[in-house]
């Protein structure tokens, strides 16, 4: 009655209103996330480190490529050319060389920085591949596992194949594959790739088995929810949390494994800046030029630590139970919100 605007106007208004509510809906989980970060200092440290490391890696990787495209030659973000030799060899860390130089006069800071995108991409990428392949297979093996059916046969086959891989210690298997493929970054990546997915099959299958026999799945079935919807809404939703936590923590492990392959001398070649290769080639100078080994090793240490801390905290952030618990602890002194009142019955 009061509104005499046309229907188009109205539709626009309701749309704007709806999208506003959507934004408001996103704000709440974000607040929960920030609260956990504030309440848990180690998670905060991990989160900040992960953000800094990832951002740096992105800049180091993208800027040279973009400048190559735009102005024809790459502009390096690192202070020196990571492979550029100079006469300032064996210098201790100083203002001009933050982490010193190595035996050939290459700037260690530039080398460590240049290796960051490769190492991080390996960590993220191999783990993501394992998560997708292993998680997918684990889901199939866990959900359709009724014996004497087609699904049961598939399930058992997946598990036995995974078992073959799991029979070897992961590092030994990865080393064996890498060694048989010859030296190179590609073969080393392939080796870890092949080694890593069976662990996710195991993990996912176990979780799926635990979830699918939970009473709430039976209750959902009793409410008329179809099997496909149960799989997505009830099983996968409860899988995300443990898998994501495991994924985050695993990034560090993959990184260490890859570096180990390089350290043994069958991973990334010497001219490719890679932390494991660097540790290997500078190991001889541990006494004379300790900053060379320590900066490469320290980079591995810091990255692994960052992801472990963050992964640990991620559990608190993703699990509604612990998230709410934390929030209520921080709020209890100020006011018990309506939640507490409503929970009384």
């Amino acid at each position, binding site marked *: 009655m009061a509104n005499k605007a046309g229907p188009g106007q*109205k539709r626009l208004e309701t*749309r704007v209103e709806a999208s506003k509510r959507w934004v408001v809906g996103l704000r709440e989980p974000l607040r929960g996330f920030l609260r956990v970060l504030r309440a848990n200092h180690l998670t905060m440290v991990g989160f900040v480190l992960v953000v800094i490391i990832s951002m740096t890696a992105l800049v180091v990787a993208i800027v040279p490529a973009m400048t190559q495209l735009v102005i024809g030659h790459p502009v390096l973000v690192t202070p020196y050319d990571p492979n550029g030799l100079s006469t300032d060899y064996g210098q201790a860390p100083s203002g001009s060389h933050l982490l010193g130089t190595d035996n050939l006069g290459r700037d260690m800071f530039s080398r460590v920085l240049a290796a960051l995108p490769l190492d991080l991409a390996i960590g993220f990428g191999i783990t993501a591949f394992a998560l997708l392949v292993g998680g997918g297979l684990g889901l199939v093996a866990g959900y359709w596992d009724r014996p004497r059916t087609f699904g049961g046969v598939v399930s058992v086959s997946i598990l036995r194949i995974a078992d073959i891989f799991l029979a070897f210690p992961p590092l030994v298997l990865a080393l064996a594959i890498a060694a048989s493929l010859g030296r190179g970054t590609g073969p080393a990546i392939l080796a870890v790739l092949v080694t890593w997915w069976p662990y996710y099959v195991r993990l996912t299958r176990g979780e799926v088995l635990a979830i699918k026999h939970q009473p*709430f799945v039976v*209750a959902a079935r009793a409410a008329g929810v179809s099997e496909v919807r149960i799989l997505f809404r009830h099983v996968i939703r409860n899988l995300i949390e443990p898998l994501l936590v495991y994924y985050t923590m695993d990034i560090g492990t993959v990184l260490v494994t890859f570096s180990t392959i390089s350290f043994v001398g069958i991973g990334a070649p010497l001219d490719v800046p890679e932390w494991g290769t660097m540790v290997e080639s500078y190991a001889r100078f541990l006494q004379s030029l300790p900053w060379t080994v320590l900066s490469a090793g320290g980079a591995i240490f810091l990255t692994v630590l960052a992801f472990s801390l963050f992964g640990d905290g991620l559990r608190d952030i993703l699990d509604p139970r612990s998230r709410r618990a934390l929030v209520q602890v921080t709020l209890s002194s100020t006011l018990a919100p309506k939640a507490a009142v*409503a929970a009384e019955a």
Partner: protein
Amino acid sequence: MNGMPEPVLDVQGLSIDYEVGAGTFHALSDVSVQLSPGRVVGIVGETGSGKSTLAHAIPRLLREPPARIRSGRIFFQGVNVLELPKWKLPLLRGTGIGMIFQEPINSLNPAYRVFDQVAEAVTIRKLRESGVAPTLFPSAEPHDYSRGTRVKTGEAILHAVVPRVPNWLPSARREALMKDVLDYLRLVRINDPETILDLYPHELSGGMRQRIMIAIALSGKPSLLIADEPTSALDITIQAQVLTLMKELMDEVRTSILFISHDLGVIAEMADDVGVLYAGHLVELGPVDEVYTNPRHPYTKLLMRAIPNRYKRAGPLPALTGSVPSLANVPPGCPFHPRCPLAQKICGSDPGPVLEAATGASVRTHLAACYFSDEVASLP
């Protein structure tokens, strides 16, 4: 009762085994129960007497392999549930047969808020009602479930004029389901449903969770509701609250209810008719007051005697001699005969008169699977 109404549920001679490594367990042997529309039938029995198996078998929720339906038929609204193809089973549940479970703590998905849990069931019903999803049984409509909220005239006009918010936005979806969700939460006597919409199950008390489970079950508007020990996991005061609520709801929502419990008192309170299960056999079936005042099966009689009475303090509580037989080797003949004071030779070989599932008006008849029913009254 006028004429013979078509029973909502007609279980005929249902026998179910569990086949596990250790052997075969006869969870149910030749059980027949009928439910007329609007009636509440209680099933009472000890732990392991097959109550839950019966409850889960009707909407086909049993896991088969371990379980195997040996014989029998389950007619729900005239359709034999046991012959339905697997893909049709979800269509049977929710809008056809609703279920309330024993443990409200585990029966709600910990990852979703109250709103989403109820909304899921509402969505399923709406999809089926609107014909988007196929449906097997149209849900029983006659009841007006809305309670408390009245659509104001102004609002109704506004709704007619304002075009709907696009459906693909989560907030719009929430908006569309909000009224129903709030209605059902109010129906189960949650006074400020708005305040709990965004809470997770673990933030609620046991009674609150069970109310939400009831709201979920009712939001499918089922024509048969199976309550599988809905109060056993709750402590005694909450139990009373939930039972009062269910009692009130029975008057409001006239669905047929199969109420399963191990508690004779609860059954007396809730049910019109009662069936007594012993070691997978239905030993007695009849109207509650009949069965309770005048049991016709020795097991029921002795069970009644074992109920503590606060007005009688004479000596120790009488207990049944012997123990419940293992379901792996139920005694031949009447399952109760090794413990029965009235047992005769025939009891060891003959399971007693068959409890003919009585239809319609004759559901009021009182039956017992015992040849010596007339002597039961003479037992101490």
